[in-house]
């Protein structure tokens, strides 16, 4: 049984841990902390793998653990949060071009200025394409709160100076 659990879990980690790290990165803004958050969430998932296995959507179950881990960390150690340190190196090789990197960094810097709730809403809505209802369920808040937080966040992002495009006229 333990072997079966371990094999299933290892496959889950292989398939989904990159995506979990991306979401964690969006939530916390720090690539190293994101790795820690994803690892903590997966540790918790392993310890209750029986429940994860029975879930309709295993990834959604673990993603919710990840969001809760992030919230717990913020609640316990708000003075520890450091979301403004930028990672200028993209993860892994990719077809990225300098303009796209700069754009990503500008978006991240703007995200760092959002409140934790606004950031969580935006990340779940746009990084993982959750509906407003799913986002509300994931965060344990009302759909109306998701809508208002999202609208506020987008307003802030539109006004962020780093998010004005620079083009040759």
């Amino acid at each position, binding site marked *: 049984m333990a072997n079966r659990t371990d094999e299933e879990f*290892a496959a889950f980690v292989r398939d989904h841990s990159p995506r979990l790290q991306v979401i964690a990165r969006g939530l916390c803004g720090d690539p190293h902390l994101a790795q820690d958050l*994803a690892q903590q969430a997966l540790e918790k998932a*392993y310890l209750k793998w029986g429940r994860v296995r029975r879930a309709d959507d295993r990834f959604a179950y673990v993603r919710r653990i990840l969001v809760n881990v992030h919230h717990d960390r913020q609640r316990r150690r708000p003075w520890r949060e450091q979301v403004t340190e930028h990672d200028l190196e993209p993860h892994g090789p*990719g077809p990225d071009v300098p303009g796209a990197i700069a754009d990503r960094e500008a978006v991240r810097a703007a995200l760092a200025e959002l409140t934790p709730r606004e950031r969580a809403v935006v990340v779940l809505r746009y990084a993982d394409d959750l509906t407003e209802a799913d986002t509300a369920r994931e965060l344990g808040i009302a759909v109306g709160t998701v809508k208002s937080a999202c609208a506020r966040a987008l307003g802030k992002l539109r006004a962020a100076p780093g998010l004005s495009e620079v083009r040759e006229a």
Partner: protein
Amino acid sequence: MEEREPMTDPEERLRMALREEAPPALDADAIIHGARRHRAARRLQVAAAAAGLVVVTGGVVTAVNVTDQAAQEGSSAAAPAAPAERRADASTSPGSAHRTVGPQAPQAGRDAPVVDGLALRVRADGFCVVPPAGPPVCRTGPGAVAAPGATRRWVIHRGPRATHVAQYASGDRWLPMTVVGAGSPDEPLLAYAPDPVGDGPFRVRQVAPDGSVARTD
């Protein structure tokens, strides 16, 4: 000439920025090991609480500050009970899970007793410093995790109970825990189990210098 255009489609840019190149997958074996160890540590902490102990797991005590009085008199948990309550501050920082500081309190000007070959020298100012090594996480109390470089300080009352040795068992085999401080009636004994062996359930006991079991859960 450049002109700046306001961003008109933040949703799309958000999607593109958030869907970055995914990092590599995490190491499942390391996560499984960490999860099991964390579970064992929690179970041990629960068992230890029943025996009046606070168990520190997964880190290493890296500095002990002995007060002037204690430094002059020396204080050793292996020696007979200290005549008066002495205070020492202890702090932790990242360290190897396989290294422990000896149960004896350090004596100024002398090498403190060590476990696992880890040298611990007391400086003239009363501090003894152990070079940190190993994973950058140190659990300094039930559920508390210190980040690299973080310092947590305890005021430890060294009293007669510092002479006791803490042990824990998963199954029939009793394993030693390092006592890093002894409690007054108001403060629990602080014991250190860097990497709990086994998966629980755990039993915890304190053993007096004469070998008698002082307290068990």
